[in-house]
């Protein structure tokens, strides 16, 4: 990630503050920064979403294409992730500099999202064993100020909610050759059920306490962090420890409990906001980056 240099005195200041449940910008240990989400920002994708979490800006675009299903699971479609750490975020990502981080992010996203419990992959099947929908989820990192996983997961959930996949009609002619017809009507489309899509919560261990939604400065003071993906029911679907330091088992348990609590509380307001945005329909003024 883009590194920020923090002096020893600043580190001590941050750690003492966290100990008393007060962070640099006045938040508590389990508070998120100001978040802004907007869907349908890029019109030639099937679904898109833009999120700004403090100074972290992420843009996600989903494109649906017809492909061959995987041989092990012939009646399911699948998701393909690609994370592009653009040079916009920091000059270190120019050329191939952002590839390492991009690959790490997309591998984690595969683990969290590409399974039948998170997304209903059966609904992406067209013809078992022959055709299925492949959703290419492209994540574009525009600005980086810590907590990339959380922002990306919320943006992916919003983009999948916004995704409209055209309906396919299969007709068989006399010789048994199947023909696929994609519906021309832009409103005749299938939507995905994103109820079970999890949200990722990253907890960073600073001193003896943990913080949610760490900025780059706070990340520089932490030894290790725990990444938990939580569904709306509070079920934990993936846990990963990141960073160079070590965590003792008790703090892992504590952090998991806190992560479950925080993650579960994210889903309801998010779905409410997405439904509200959708209900505005055509009347909604698209802002994007112009606001």
């Amino acid at each position, binding site marked *: 990630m883009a590194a920020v240099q923090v002096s020893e005195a600043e580190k001590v200041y941050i750690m003492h503050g966290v100990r008393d449940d007060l962070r640099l910008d006045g938040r508590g240990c389990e508070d998120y920064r100001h978040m802004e989400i907007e869907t349908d920002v*890029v019109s030639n994708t099937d679904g898109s979403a833009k999120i700004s979490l403090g100074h972290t*800006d992420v843009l996600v675009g989903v494109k649906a294409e017809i492909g061959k299903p995987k041989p092990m699971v012939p009646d399911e479609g699948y998701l393909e992730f690609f994370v592009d750490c653009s040079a*916009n*975020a*920091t000059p270190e990502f120019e050329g*191939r500099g952002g590839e390492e981080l991009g690959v790490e992010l997309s591998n984690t996203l595969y683990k969290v999202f590409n399974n039948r419990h998170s997304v209903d992959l059966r609904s992406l099947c067209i013809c078992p064993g022959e055709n299925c929908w492949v959703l290419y989820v*492209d994540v574009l990192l525009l600005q980086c100020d810590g907590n990339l996983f959380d922002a990306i997961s919320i943006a992916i959930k919003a983009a999948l909610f916004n995704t409209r996949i055209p309906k396919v009609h299969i007709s068989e002619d006399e010789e048994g050759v199947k023909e696929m017809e994609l519906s021309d009507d832009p409103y005749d489309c299938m939507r995905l059920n994103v109820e079970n899509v999890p949200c990722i919560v990253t907890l960073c261990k600073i001193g003896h306490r943990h913080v949610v939604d760490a900025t780059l400065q706070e990340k520089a003071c932490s030894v290790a962090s725990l990444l938990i993906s939580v569904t709306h029911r509070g079920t934990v679907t993936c846990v990963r420890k990141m960073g160079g330091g070590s965590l003792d088992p008790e703090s892992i348990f504590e952090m998991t409990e806190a992560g479950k609590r925080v993650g579960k509380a994210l889903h309801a307001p998010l779905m409410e906001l997405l439904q509200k945005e959708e209900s505005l329909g055509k009347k909604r003024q698209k802002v994007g*980056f*112009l606001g």
Partner: protein
Amino acid sequence: MAGLELLSDQGYRLDGRKASELRKVQARTSVFAQADGSAYLEQGNTKALAVVYGPHETRGSRSKSLHDRAVINCQYSMATFSTAERKRRPHGDRKSSEMSLHLKQTFEAAVLTELYPRSQIDIYVKILQADGGNYSACVNAATLALVDAGIPMRDYVCACTAGFVEDTPLADLCHAEESGGGTSLALALLPRSGNIALLQMDARLHQDHLDALIEAAMTACKGLSKVLDGVVRQHLEEVSVLIRD
């Protein structure tokens, strides 16, 4: 394709514009707080985001730095979801490298690089949605970003494309018009002096038509420069209202 004429008998193009009409241009500077300068520009359906870092010390090898002026480093990349067909690699392919070189050439003509010897100015442009005129949108967005970063320039750099159909020059081509196989000219202009920073033309054109085509592109660029100027002044007004007591 039958029935899809680039210019109808009544003088209307595919998207309803007249021959010399530009697409709607909307822009905003200071989109990102972390970069030195940033701008977002929409030209019709083409959306471009430009970010400027610098002037700062030359990163990487010291040998790249020039003793008497700044090095301008550009990278052009497209988001994978920007085109109708998904693009596999955002940058690093031949087209993106060529565009990056063109951008570098364009801005070396406009930026006062002699003021910053041994330093580097980075310009990163990202296309979020491509609908024709990618290069022009990038140049216009990058101009605004350079102004936002406070880097001294000789003049605004405005770019526009132009095409030619049946004796009529068309200004500001969209994707369907560009890929139709007709002539397409990209021009980057410094409006006040009328100097051309970059000129590129594809496909065949009779030399008698060349003047008219360049003239159409230059008029379009001058119109664009007024829009860009308006955006910068409006941003300054907003900011000064906040600073003023």
